[in-house]
């Protein structure tokens, strides 16, 4: 028997096919017959998917362990909020969330346009095709799979080890690392971001096919929305790694987090291309749609990275049947994009216009687009070729002696050039061009000179790390660049952005002013994030405390380098309040600490260790101060009466958090102003 949830998905699938046929008949044969059904079918389909998601949530909340997915990611003693967030803890649920949001955006398209234009109709056709494909993937890896359909359960029933109508009494439980606030928000942000990329992509493909006007306007807000959600999803993932996984940093170039960062980079490129394209249709008439399509392809790629089992990551889910289907979809979309892009390129008449030289706004913007593409490619290549080598040659390779070195060292020079372009572009003024070129050259000169400055250990690669000596010559050469060289371009970019902000503030009419402020804030955000990232990763001080006996509670223990730690209290509890400590599925050990430097207290708080049958998690103590330096203590669980601790002094992380907030505020301001094209 087909589970009820799946029948909803099948019904939504049937409705989408009807809508698709209606749209195709209208488009190719101009038959109106079916056309009236299209909008209701799409709205109903979106409604059914919404209902199926509510149904899944209901199964989680009521603990219906007859469903395999509920059993895998939930248990009775989880607090309600984690029962709800369990719906997006695994692949089947996130597929459902993904298609749900695609259908909601299709419904929006249907509702707002009524498919009255060819552009809207064709964009809807491509959106529906994508939606249908992903609904099929959801059905293959359905969250509504019954536990009785699990091969191991079938076998056990056949052997008589389980009763025929077996329903587990309790669930397997949520992985301990997922039991925290960031887990509640990270997956929905990511998958909503993935899904909202569909309409800009579909509109871009239609534009490449038919040169339809208005494609950029149709997808504009969706692309910004994706940028916001994807960006915040990645950021929240970073916060999670910092606060929960105890990485001691927020970015580790793990293949999965890198994979989600790549489409964000190309999407940033698209937003820049679109900004000029909307002013003059002939500018970036190929680059803009290609970047939109590539961002969508890379979203699929990011999903594939998690689901193929080819990429070795902390997000390990193992290989799943839908991984290869995603690869097929990626191939189809890539081929379509390349063919259409090539066709448009060859069709494009060679514009004969006076040569305005290299130094004009369009060219500098074009360099910026290329920089985003280059940065995206570095990340893409760094996660892809090791997987490729593993697949084709059976070898396991690392990209550098230490994985993060590869990404840091190759991205570094292009980040400087990006900041230079930002400084030049935001301050660009046709009249003062010569003067501005002079400033740019001075900053370039300073950047190059400062690369050679010798410091204690403030280089692109950490010279004190044991990996440093084993990097090859070229990696050492780039790794030897002083990070001081980042600051001339960073100051230049900041100054330009500030200048621009002042100009924007002088604008009389309100809408361009708000939009301008938004643009300035976003760019300030980027500078803050870079600053925070560089400072925190270069100046973190790490002290292995070792084990402090619990018996020394209340006494200061000298841990060297002038630091002392005092254990104030130790306690255990169960995560669910109704369950007594040490008997539930999730047991938390908390140690309350005070940290001293030269006898004055620099931080205090609680470091926790969560233990469960599905793994363990460390929730470090993070005490931030206004000066921007975090006191960070990782507690790895009580062992034979001792408290093992690691102390880190991490400066500058607050700048990155602040930058992320600026990103969000800025783009929301930009979105709030509906600019006319």
């Amino acid at each position, binding site marked *: 028997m087909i589970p009820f949830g799946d029948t909803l998905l099948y019904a939504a699938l049937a409705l989408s096919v009807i809508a698709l046929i209606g749209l195709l008949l209208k488009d190719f044969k101009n038959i109106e017959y079916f056309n009236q059904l299209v909008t209701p079918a799409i709205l109903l389909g979106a409604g059914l998917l919404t209902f199926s998601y509510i149904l899944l949530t209901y199964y989680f909340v009521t603990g219906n362990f007859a469903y395999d997915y509920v059993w895998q990611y939930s248990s009775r003693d989880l607090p309600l909020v984690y029962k709800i967030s369990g719906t997006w803890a695994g692949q089947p649920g996130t597929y459902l969330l993904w298609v749900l949001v695609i259908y909601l955006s299709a419904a929006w398209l249907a509702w707002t346009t009524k498919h009255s234009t060819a552009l809207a109709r064709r964009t809807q056709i491509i959106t529906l095709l994508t939606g249908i494909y992903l609904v099929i993937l959801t059905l293959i890896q359905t969250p509504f799979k019954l536990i009785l359909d699990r091969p191991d359960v079938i076998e056990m029933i056949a052997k008589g080890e389980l009763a025929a109508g077996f329903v587990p009494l309790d669930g397997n439980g949520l992985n301990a690392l997922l039991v925290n606030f960031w887990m509640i928000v990270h997956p929905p942000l990511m998958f909503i971001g993935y899904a909202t990329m569909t309409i800009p992509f579909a509109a871009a493909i239609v534009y490449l096919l038919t040169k339809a006007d208005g494609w950029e306007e149709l997808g504009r807000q969706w692309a910004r929305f994706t940028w916001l959600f994807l960006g915040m999803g990645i950021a929240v993932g970073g916060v999670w790694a910092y606060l929960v996984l105890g990485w001691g940093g927020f970015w580790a170039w793990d293949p999965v987090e890198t994979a989600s960062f790549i489409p964000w980079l190309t999407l940033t490129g698209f937003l820049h291309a679109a900004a000029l394209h909307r002013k003059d249709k002939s500018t970036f008439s190929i680059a803009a749609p290609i970047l939109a399509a590539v961002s969508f392809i890379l979203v699929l790629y990011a999903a594939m990275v998690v689901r193929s089992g080819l990429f070795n990551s*902390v997000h390990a889910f193992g290989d799943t049947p839908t991984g290869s289907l995603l690869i097929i979809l990626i191939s189809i979309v890539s081929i379509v994009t390349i063919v259409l892009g090539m066709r448009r390129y060859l069709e494009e008449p060679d514009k004969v216009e006076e040569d305005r030289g290299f130094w004009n706004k369009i060219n500098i913007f074009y360099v910026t687009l290329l920089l985003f593409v280059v940065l995206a490619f570095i990340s893409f290549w760094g996660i892809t070729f090791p997987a490729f080598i593993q697949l084709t040659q059976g070898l396991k390779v690392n990209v550098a002696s230490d994985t993060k070195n590869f990404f840091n060292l190759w991205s570094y020079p292009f980040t400087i050039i990006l900041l230079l372009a930002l400084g030049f572009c935001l301050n660009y003024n046709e009249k003062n061009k010569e003067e501005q070129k002079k400033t740019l050259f001075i900053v370039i000169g300073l950047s190059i000179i400062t690369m050679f400055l010798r410091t204690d250990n403030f280089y692109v690669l950490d010279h004190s790390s044991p990996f440093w000596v084993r990097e090859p010559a070229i990696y050492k050469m780039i790794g030897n660049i002083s990070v001081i060289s980042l600051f001339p371009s960073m100051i230049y970019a900041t100054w330009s952005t500030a200048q621009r902000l002042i100009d924007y503030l002088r604008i009389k009419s309100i809408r361009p002013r708000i939009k301008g402020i938004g643009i300035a804030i976003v760019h300030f955000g980027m500078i803050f994030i870079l600053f925070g990232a560089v400072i925190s990763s270069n100046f973190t001080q790490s002290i292995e405390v070792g084990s402090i006996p619990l018996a020394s509670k209340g006494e200061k223990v000298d841990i060297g380098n002038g630091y002392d730690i005092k254990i104030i209290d130790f306690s255990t509890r169960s995560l669910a309040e109704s369950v007594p400590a040490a008997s539930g599925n999730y047991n938390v050990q908390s140690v309350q600490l005070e940290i001293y430097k030269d006898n004055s207290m620099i931080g205090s708080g609680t470091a926790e260790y969560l233990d469960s049958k599905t793994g363990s998690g460390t929730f470090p103590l993070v005490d931030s101060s206004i000066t921007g330096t975090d006191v960070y203590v990782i507690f790895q669980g009580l062992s034979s009466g001792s408290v093992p601790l690691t102390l880190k002094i991490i400066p500058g992380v607050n700048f990155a958090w602040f930058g992320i907030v600026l990103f969000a505020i800025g783009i929301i301001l930009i979105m709030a102003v509906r600019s006319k094209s």
Partner: protein
Amino acid sequence: MRTKKLVSILVLVLILAFAYFSYTTALTNFTLSDKTNSYLGGIKFHRAAAGLEEGFQIAQQENKPVMVYFWAIWCQYCARFQTDTLGNPQIKKILEEDYVLVAMDLDIDREVAQEYGVSYPPYLVFMDPKGKILERVPGAVGPDYLLPIVTQVREKVRGNTT
């Protein structure tokens, strides 16, 4: 439009050069595992289930203890554990001379990991030549912690036969 075309071509060439260079560099410098061996922290290990079997044969012939190292490429602590702890000159010398070393990649050798009750990296299991577990070291411990264990296990195995 000439400038744009030129810049595009230049960038494309740069990208291809970078791709080729990093690919070959990784193959020559950073191979972690091939079909029979793993190379972690500058130490050569036998690898996977087949390597473990072979390891036990060698261990029995030479009366050496077996150390199985469970690792993963995405493991934040493993890389430093390999260089600082396993790669500690004293420890490294003992391991290379007096031990049979086997590495298990948690992304591939999941079954072996399950068999030994290992659920996260890094994780060391010490055994005598017959496969009896003598010691377990979970987590990224420091060299001060590991050195006595490495010595004790070696003495224990040597003592059993003499």
